[in-house]
Every structure is written in C-alpha cells, then in structure tokens.
C-alpha cells in the first residue's frame, strides 16, 4: 500500500484546487473550496450529508424554451472533482446509493456522471458521537472500501494512503510515511473505536419489521413527531424526490428536487385519497423502507448509523429506540 504523509494539509489542498473542483466538509455540509480561505477539515460529522455532491437538492434535468415547445437541452457537467474528508459512514452511503441509482435496470444519468468523475478522499473517523451507531453496521472507522485515498489525522499531520490507482497517482509526490506515523494512526483509530458503544441489533430485523406492520407501537412512538422531515433531508441515504418545472420568463427548466416521505402531500392522490395519511404510517414507511424494503430490493440496509437524524430531531425522536423496540418483539 502506498502510504504517505501530509505535513501541511492547507498547502496540499491548495495544489489540488489548481487541477480539480475540490469539495470538502464544513460544519454545515460539503462546499466547493474555491480558495485558501475556504479550506477547512471539519472533524465532526457535517450537518448535511455529502450525498448532495452526487444527488443535489436541486438537479436541472434539462432546460426548455416555453415558446418553442419541445426543445429540451441538458446542462453538461464538465469538471474533474475531488470530494475530500468523507467519513466512513458517508462513504458507505455512496455504496448504498450506487445500488439504487446505478444498477442493471436503472442508470441515473446525473448521479452516475458525478459519481464516476469524482475522486473520493475519505477520512478516518476519530470523533464518533454518542448519537453514532455505525458499529451496528460493521462500518470500520478507517474504512478503505470505495475510497481512492484515505486520510488519518495524527495530530495536524495526515497519514495518507492511496487505495486506488487514481488516488495513488494524486499523492505520488508526497513524502513517504514513517513506521512511527503508521503506528500512531493505528493508535488513534483504536482509541476512537472504544468510543462507539451502540447496541442496536440488526439481526433478523428485516423479517421482524414485516411482522410488526400492524402493531400499535407506530402510533405510540411517533406521537411527538412534528413532521418537519429534517431526518430525511439530513439522511445520507434518503433519496425521495419530486419533479417540477421552474419558469423564468420564456426560459424554463425541469428540476428534480429532494422531497420527503414524511410530508402528507407526498402521496396524496388528486382524488383526495391518501395511502399514508397519518404520520405514524409515514414514519413506519421510512423505517420499513430503510430496514426492510430496501434490503429486500437491493440487498442492503439503507442506513449507515451516522446519527444525524437522532442528533437533529427537534423532538428527540430516536430511531435506535424504535429499532430496539422492533428487535424486542
């Protein structure tokens, strides 16, 4: 393995900006680092997940001219991207989204185009919070799957491992890491692992969920929900969307926008009928989708235990409690 050391991360990123569109973490979410002042490596989980780099909140699918009915053109993405500082849980979310948007039956042109033109520079997670439950999903804090480069912060210096050929090429000119640096990285990872203590069990959860579909726990446990949908907007794997036309004079664009299964209008028929009229049904759908339906359809649970929904829910709804409740049934 190609292991190097970055002594000055700012300078390293400045050089990357010359050749790539570089996106990196801030407290609120991932932004493009346009110049030196933007550069920042947020060590905690970002508020918004990096899914928006591949699946933006607003995606222009094509533009049209209202008076020339039928002429529709699609904007072309023309940049080489580096997505920097992605935590293992969020990297795992990309693999889950890949199953949805890039499979034999369906190829999402916008998602795939961005995903394939992006180098992913992951970062080992050294600061799991008490809302994190990634250990329930066996996500390793120094995950090397699906990243091109892995960074590990060893006190202001970064141990940098080239995983893919693409990644190794980018860090080729860096100084080689010493055995001491490598050892230090192992130590910080071990220390971080000790902080994780989620006991959420996923054993047979998918089947158990099917059996509790009619259970009154859904009503009981979801009573306090405000229906604000923060959980779905911050979730790295939620992917419900809407399609709308936006007009500006004679010009217009058809856009794909994030939507949420937590809104009653989401499933409302024009006739007035609504198959998921109550919030208990909507929350049930969200939980069932992540832990049962998605697993049945795509072979994997659509949650990575990042804890964003737990940490940011205004009424402290905790999906872990719900899962424990199902497990105990």
């Amino acid at each position, binding site marked *: 393995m190609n292991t190097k050391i970055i002594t000055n991360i700012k300078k390293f990123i400045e050089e990357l900006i010359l050749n790539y569109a570089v996106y990196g973490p801030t407290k609120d979410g991932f932004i493009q680092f346009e110049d030196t002042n933007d550069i920042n490596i947020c060590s905690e989980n970002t508020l918004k997940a990096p899914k928006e780099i591949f699946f933006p909140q607003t995606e222009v699918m094509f533009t049209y001219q209202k008076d020339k009915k*039928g002429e529709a053109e699609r904007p072309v993405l023309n940049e080489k991207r580096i997505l920097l500082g992605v935590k293992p849980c969020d990297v795992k979310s990309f693999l889950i989204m890949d199953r*949805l948007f890039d499979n034999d039956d*369906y*190829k999402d042109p916008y998602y795939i185009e961005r995903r394939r033109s992006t180098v992913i520079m992951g970062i080992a997670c050294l600061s799991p919070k008490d809302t994190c439950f990634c250990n329930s999903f066996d996500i390793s804090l120094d995950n090397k799957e699906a990243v091109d480069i892995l960074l590990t912060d060893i006190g202001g210096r970064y141990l940098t491992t080239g995983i893919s050929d693409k990644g190794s090429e980018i860090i080729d000119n860096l100084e080689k890491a010493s055995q001491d640096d490598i050892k230090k990285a192992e130590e910080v990872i071990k220390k971080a692992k000790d902080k994780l203590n989620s006991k959420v069990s996923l054993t047979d959860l998918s089947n158990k969920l099917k059996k509790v579909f009619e259970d009154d726990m859904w009503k009981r446990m979801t009573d306090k929900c405000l229906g604000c949908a923060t959980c779905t907007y911050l979730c790295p794997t939620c*992917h419900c*969307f809407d*399609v709308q036309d936006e007009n500006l004079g004679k010009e217009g664009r*058809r856009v794909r926008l994030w939507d949420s299964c937590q809104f009653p209008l989401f499933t409302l028929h024009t006739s007035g009928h609504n198959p*998921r009229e109550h919030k208990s049904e909507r929350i049930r759908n969200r939980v069932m989708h992540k832990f049962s339906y998605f697993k049945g*359809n795509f072979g994997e649970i659509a949650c990575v235990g990042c804890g964003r929904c737990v940490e940011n829910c205004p009424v402290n709804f905790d999906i872990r409690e719900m899962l424990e409740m199902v497990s105990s049934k």
Partner: protein
Amino acid sequence: MENIYKPYIAEIKEIVRETSDTTTFKLEFVDEEVKKSFDFKAGQFGEYSVFGVGECTFCIASSPTRKGYIECSFKKVGKVTSVLYDLNVGDKIGFRGPYGNWFPIDDMKGKNLIFVGGGIGLAPLRSLIWNCLDNRDDFKDITIIYGARSINDLVYKNELKEWKERKDINFVVTVDPGGEDKDWKGKVGFVPTVLEEVSPSKKNAVVITCGPPIMIKFVVLSLVKMGFSDEQIVTTLEMRMKCGLGKCGRCNIGNVYVCKDGPVFTYKEIKQFPAEF
C-alpha cells in the same frame, strides 16, 4: 449517457371530448425514428408533460396493435391535466415511457375474457380490449361490462356503439341508478350488481377490471362470491407517481413499487400487500 428524464415530443393530432371533464388525445411522435420504433404493451403508462407546468401520469389507452400513434384519456382534475385539457390539435406535449408492467395477454390466449370497467377506468382496459379484438381468433368468448355514474359520464361512446353491434362480443353497459334518462336502453344498476346479473362463467376465464377503487373492491367481492379464484382476477392500480421508474419513493405498497412492479397485479398478489393503499 442517455437522459432518461428527457421526454419525447408528441404532437396532438386529434381531440375527442369524452365527457364534460374528460378528453382523449391522439398523439404522434414528432421524431420519425421514435414514431417508427416506439412500442409498448397494453397496461403500460407514461408521464405526459406540458413544458412550464409539469408532468402527470396516466395509461396509454390505445392498442399496441395500432402503430404510429398512441392515445390517452384523462380527466381534468389537477394542475397539469387542467392545462393539457385546454390544448389544441397541433400543440406539442412531452411523453416519457412506456413504464410499468402489462396485462398478461399471452396467458389470456385461448381463454374467455371478462372485462369489467367503471368510468374512466375503461381507458387501460380499452388498450387491451382492442389488442384482443385485433387478434380475435386467439381468444374465446369476450364479455365487456362497463358502467358509469350517468349516461354523460360514459367514455368512448362511439366504440361502445361498435362493441354493442359486434356479434363476437357480449357487451353490457350500465349506469348508476338515477344516471339514466327516458331513452336509455342499457341497464340501470351498479357495476358489481350487473356483473352478478350477467353472471359469466368462471370456467377457463380471466377477469380484467379497472375503475374507481370502491368499484374494484365490490367487483372483487362479487367475483369471489361467484367462485372466481384470486389468480383469475387481474386489475391495475393507481398511485401518485413522479418518476415512473421506482425511484422517487411515492407509489410503494410495502416493497412493491406500483410504477415499476405494477401497475398490473392479480388479486392474489394484491392480497399479499400490507394494508397501505
């Protein structure tokens, strides 16, 4: 990479006003290549769009045996259908599709077919009915039972006349009590009641039904009472949809996505669904 959300452009060639709020468009794709190669199966649907207003979902109402064009029928109820409704011959609209599964027409060959439709729910059945009529020898007896709230709510009136006159179809038309006038020669009664009255044999038969949810519910109850098995009953479901491709998250019933895994299901399949539709 192909932009799968970019619609084909289709020109409105003919407009038939079916009722006071329901209309049928005959559409031809502008691109000659698309016009030639476009193919679908009875039961599939599409996303129809007006640029600047948005997309809406309904079935292709014409038969795949009639090449070079498609037809669709819709009710003026929502944002997009209200604008669509006011378009004229020569106007262009967008179309994405065909999406979803289809009626199992190959399995229907050599069988007696019973179509039970209500209101605009005749639209998807019409696609299959003409598909079967254009290959009449492949099927045994064909019974069509069709009803609407009133005479004015009956759609495809010219075709109803044609079906009535054909010797190779047993065609029964009905309107709900109070929906008739003094010249009405059809039946008066709700569709499930008339179905029981006509009482088609379950032997070697398939029933294909579509209409308002409440009608489907009672038609199924009648059929079960008449001894039809769950596999013999086929219907097509409606859900709010946006993408048509199983991604946008709206139309699922459990892990089944109506847009991708449906909209056509047997009653046997529907019975397995969780109660959420």
